[in-house]
């Protein structure tokens, strides 16, 4: 899925949202899901009935009641508009996904072992367990497991990543997704999902919010808001008897106006929009959450389990130092190390070439072509350059555990210490005494020693050691500091020995590490954390990660991972970027913060509304209650209208906030609380006083009351 950052108010989305806002308003079933807005809906309906009665009877303040009824209806429509806006972005994305789900014809294999037994069937007729053949250019007809073959696959339709990926049978790269395209070779795939249950189908449903269920916190908040609504229902309903006692009476529309102003319509109207927008923000990050529940859980996470490789360190080790032995000069070692690494395409090999160039000005000598011939283009070393034309690359193999080059009589080798030592001894060389301590020191510090030796016309001799080091990603320490500030503990998971792990852990600034980790260790760690009441988040991609992913409270599976891992996790990162866990946590927190802030704002708003409406209600019975009209509102009608209008408009005004979420900066809870309380608590007290007064002035200006 390609990520297109849409503007918040994209015209087509707005147009669709307006249409849907009205459709939602007249759907009782939809309205009944939201108790607060349902009460507003009932209030609007009753006010409308009163309006009709007044028009028929030519009684009451028809103009006033009409405006009241309109604004009450608007309140409902505005809330539905907010929800439709939040859904709109997802729906637009779902449409583009749906367009991909073209009807493909699959080549079903009667006998999976016989590729000639293929018969064409529509993809929709494939069932779990069927086997299909895919050749270059074919769209893979459904989610499945590669059981034979290896091929490059274009998954850009799902991930947005244009570089093709390799899919092969067995191992951790065997999962394929329906809708992606085979580019080369062939694959035999066993289908693992029935039509309608595929990843693409699920993704469309999730993005669209079709299966959206209220999340636990949303349910709890709805209960609170419903409770407050009932309390205000008591307060307003009993006001009429008290008014009768006092020798007056309050018209029903005015009572409804007070009720609607008091019940928490701001948060009630925006609650579902906030939840949908939170999911949407994840999708913008290319993460698909299988449920809203997991997004909430992400906000609560106490412990992050992070794999070392790819998350904390750059995927590979890098050369950081040359250490000569036995009286060899540093330049000589660097030169030979670079020479031996020129044809070495591994990241480690390339890092050696780069280090030699940076430290000693040894210019990179280009690899001429696929015939594995060296062209050493150093003018000062013409002899080498001549020889290099005849150079022969000795590739790394598991049995020799070293690699190198042969250039005429000059043979250079680099590799594991014992392997190179054996090569030197076989070639009648001696091992310098200073080698062993250096190798041991590097290993102790968490690095990898790579020993270099050469043989030029006769006996071999040791040159020195290349220090290969795990390089911690730039800026990762700062990110961990931020995470720690949020009160989250980070634990690094690595297969390295404890010594190496400790060195990297302290450099990266993680709180703890699990060294020489097996899948069982990982599982045990998660269970231990959870037993202590903590919520654990982790990423994983391999099949052996699946149990841990399922056990973790937030398990983010990499899209490049196996089907088993994707099934086990409750989120999938389409970019397969393990660092994204941090963003996921931040989005979860932001979601909860937005809810809390708007709830606080909504409740704090009520204070001003009381001071507007109560004196207006009883101005006839008790003119002395004018003393409560501290805003100096023009008339009872203008005061009540101004409150209702403010109440409706604030929903619209807060839609951008609901969709984007409140500003989030990682900080301790006490600091976040202080800031949000000032903005949304104190702000919530003050804003309506100003807003209602301004609207009142406008009403007077326009002669509306």
């Amino acid at each position, binding site marked *: 899925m390609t990520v297109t950052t849409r503007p918040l108010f994209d015209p087509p989305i707005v147009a669709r949202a307006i249409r849907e806002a009205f459709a939602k308003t007249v759907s009782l079933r939809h309205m009944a899901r939201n108790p607060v807005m349902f009460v507003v809906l009932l209030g609007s309906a009753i006010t409308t009935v009163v309006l009709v009665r007044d028009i028929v009877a030519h009684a009451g303040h028809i103009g006033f009641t009409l405006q009241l009824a309109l604004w009450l209806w608007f309140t409902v429509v505005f809330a539905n508009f907010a929800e439709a806006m939040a859904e709109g972005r997802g729906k637009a994305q779902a449409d583009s996904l749906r367009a991909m789900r073209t009807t493909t014809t699959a080549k079903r294999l009667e006998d999976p072992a016989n590729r000639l037994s293929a018969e064409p069937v529509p993809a929709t007729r494939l069932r779990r367990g069927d086997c299909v053949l895919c050749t270059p250019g074919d769209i893979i007809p459904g989610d499945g497991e590669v059981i034979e073959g290896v091929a490059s696959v274009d998954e850009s339709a799902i991930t947005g990543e244009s570089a093709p990926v390799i899919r092969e049978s067995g191992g951790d790269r065997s999962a394929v997704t329906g809708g992606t395209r085979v580019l080369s070779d062939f694959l035999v795939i066993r289908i693992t999902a029935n039509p309608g249950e595929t990843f693409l189908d699920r993704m469309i449903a999730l993005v669209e919010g079709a299966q959206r269920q209220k999340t*636990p*916190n949303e*349910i*709890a*908040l709805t*209960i*609170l808001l419903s*409770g407050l609504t*009932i*309390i*205000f229902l*008591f*307060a307003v*309903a*009993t*006001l009429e*008897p*008290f008014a*009768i*006692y*006092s020798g007056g009476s309050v018209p029903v529309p005015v009572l409804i106006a007070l009720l609607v102003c008091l019940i928490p319509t701001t948060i009630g109207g925006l609650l579902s929009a906030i939840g949908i927008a939170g999911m949407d923000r994840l999708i913008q990050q290319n993460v698909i959450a299988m449920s809203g529940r997991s997004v909430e859980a992400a*906000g*609560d996470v*106490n412990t992050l389990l992070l794999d070392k490789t790819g998350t904390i360190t750059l995927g590979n080790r890098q050369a950081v130092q040359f250490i000569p032995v036995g009286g060899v000069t540093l330049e000589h070692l660097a030169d030979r190390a670079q020479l031996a690494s020129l044809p070495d395409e591994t990241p480690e090999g390339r890092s050696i070439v780069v280090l030699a160039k940076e430290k000693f000005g040894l210019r990179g000598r280009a690899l001429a072509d696929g015939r594995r011939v060296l062209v050493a283009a150093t003018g000062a070393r013409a002899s080498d350059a001549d020889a290099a034309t005849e150079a022969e690359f000795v590739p790394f193999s598991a049995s020799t555990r070293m690699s190198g080059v042969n250039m005429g009589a000059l043979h250079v080798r680099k590799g594991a210490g014992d392997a190179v030592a054996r090569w030197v001894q076989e070639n009648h060389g001696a091992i310098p005494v200073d080698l062993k301590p250096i190798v041991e020191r590097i290993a102790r510090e968490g690095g990898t020693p790579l020993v270099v030796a050469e043989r030029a016309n006769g006996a071999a001799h040791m040159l020195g050691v290349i220090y290969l080091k795990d390089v911690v990603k730039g800026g990762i320490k700062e990110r961990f500091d931020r995470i*720690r*500030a*949020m*009160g*989250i*503990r980070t634990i690094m998971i690595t297969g390295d020995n404890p010594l190496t792990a400790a060195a990297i852990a302290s450099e990266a600034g993680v709180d703890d590490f699990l060294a020489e980790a097996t899948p069982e260790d990982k599982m045990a760690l998660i269970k231990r954390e959870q037993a*202590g*009441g*903590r*919520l654990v988040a982790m990423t994983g991609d391999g099949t052996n990660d699946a149990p841990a992913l399922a056990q973790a409270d937030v398990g983010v599976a990499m899209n490049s991972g196996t089907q088993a891992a994707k099934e086990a996790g409750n989120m999938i990162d389409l970019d397969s970027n393990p660092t994204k866990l941090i963003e996921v946590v931040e989005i*979860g*927190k932001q979601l*909860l*913060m937005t*809810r*809390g*802030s708007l709830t*606080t704002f909504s409740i*704090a708003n*009520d*204070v001003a509304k*009381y001071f507007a409406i*109560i004196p207006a209600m*009883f101005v006839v019975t*008790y003119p*002395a*209650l004018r003393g*409560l009209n501290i805003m100096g509102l023009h008339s009872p009608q203008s005061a009540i209208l101004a409150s209702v209008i403010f109440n409706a408009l604030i929903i619209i005004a807060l839609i951008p906030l609901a969709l984007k979420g409140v500003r989030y900066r990682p900080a*301790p*809870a*006490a600091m*976040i*609380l202080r800031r*949000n*309380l000032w903005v949304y*608590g104190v702000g919530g007290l003050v804003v309506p006083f100003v807003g209602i007064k301004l609207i009142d002035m406008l009403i007077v200006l326009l002669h509306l009351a």
Partner: protein
Amino acid sequence: MTANGWLQIGIFSILVLLLTKPLGVYIVRVFDGSLTWLATVERIIYRMSGIDPREEQHWTRYAVSMLVFSAASMLLTYAVLRLQHLLPLNPQGMPAVSDRQAFETAASFTTNTNWQSYGGETTMSYLSQMTQLTFHNFISAATGIALAMALVRGIVRRSAGTLGNFWVDLVRGTLYLLLPISLVFALVLTQQGVIQNVSHYVTATTVEGVKQVLAMGPVASQEAIKELGTNGGGFFNANSAHPFENPTPLTNLLEMLAIFAIPSALTYTYGRMARNQRHGWAIWAAMYILFFAGLTTAYRAEARGNPIHAAEGVDVVASSNNPGGNMEGKEVRFGIVNSALFATVTSATSCGAVNSMHDSFTPVGGMVPLVNIQLGEVVFGGTGAGLYGMIVMVILTVFIAGLMVGRTPEYLGKKIEAREVQMAMLFVLVFAGAILVLSALAAVTPAGLQGRNNAGPHGLSEILYAFSSTAGNNGSAFAGLTGSTYFYNTLLGFNTLIGRFAMHVPMLALAGFLAEKRIVPESAGTFPVTTPLFVALLISVILIVGALTFFPALSLGPVVEHFLMHAGRVF
């Protein structure tokens, strides 16, 4: 307002503060079972009643035990009051208490309300006073403390299914806490002049030569627990304004201290049990600030007096021989400050003992006790009831504001989720609903209107006060309302039951749900519950929830009365 007045308030506040820790620690030891100096008595009680003190109860069982015990003791009291003319210890030959009065009184004393629509000295035999009303003063207070302990255990325990044992909590609370302190306190009161006898009433001739009947009775024994257990039911009709109940300035101070002692100490107990003493003090601070705000308002209103009186030439300025302010309905012995202080103390806790007539306060002065009750009796509150009411408010605060830090709200490591919010809201809803709906009913029915002593907004205040006081299990009367009618006896009696048991069950359910949860360790991401910011937040939530619920009704009662008084109208 005078320097002397502030000094007295200062001394009272400091004494409350000094009492909090030692008594709080003592209560911890009462309920964790480490106190054993009465173990023999305790064991005999358990053996006789067939209680297994080691049995732990699930919240439902705890609730059923409490309900069954309350129902049985209420029935017993009803029976004794109805039959008191046949029973001994009735030197004045009091007749049987009427059915409606007996029902209301039994309900009222069972629920720690002690709303009295009868005059003690003209209605109750000594037997009824001693064995029923005083008995309820002890056990209703012990029940309240037991329930608070159950809630605290629910919060403190991890992954537990039980909340303790109601019977054990009841016995230990009575035996180790209420009885010994009451005994000592009663002796001190007797020394100060509170009477304690079972004699015939005495006929005396006053200095003016008028014959007067002086009611007698076992007053001190009931007086001590009346305050200590925040019960408030007076032996005499005049309650703590009566010189035989509250004879000296010292007893006045001691009685106020006794009212605050346990509710204040329980905050310390809570902090200790939760291993978060600062949180305990934060709760205490929130309570004290609310109390002080109410007190200042009432004191200021009463000291300023009524502008209409001033306009007619009454000297309302305090001087050495004139208390100034509004002295209507106040004991000259206590004056402005001790009347305002007592009124605030008795309404902030759910005590309801009075030493002045709240009905005669200025509109704002009288609104303070009313608002104190309507805030949910959480400003120190009743014995136990104040703490659990406050904890429910804390849970709501944590839920509303806790989301703002970006986590599912947690309270002392327990996640606050749907079920907990549901029970906390039910607790708040029952209270608001009972007061508003019943007051509204009384405000528009002839039977309800008949009881009023005053018309207009003041009459509405009287009605609101009666239903607030009964639902809040306070029991103080605004006075002015004639409560001994079928309408009021029945409604108010039921209201005390609603305000107690319909709130207890959701509260115990909340405790049970919390007990089952795991404890999330505290981190930098945890919502802080010990900071001044939290105290301010808690106060705001209490005020906003209380104010938003009752402001419309109050605006037609004391608020408008206040404006009208300044416009020259009284009711």
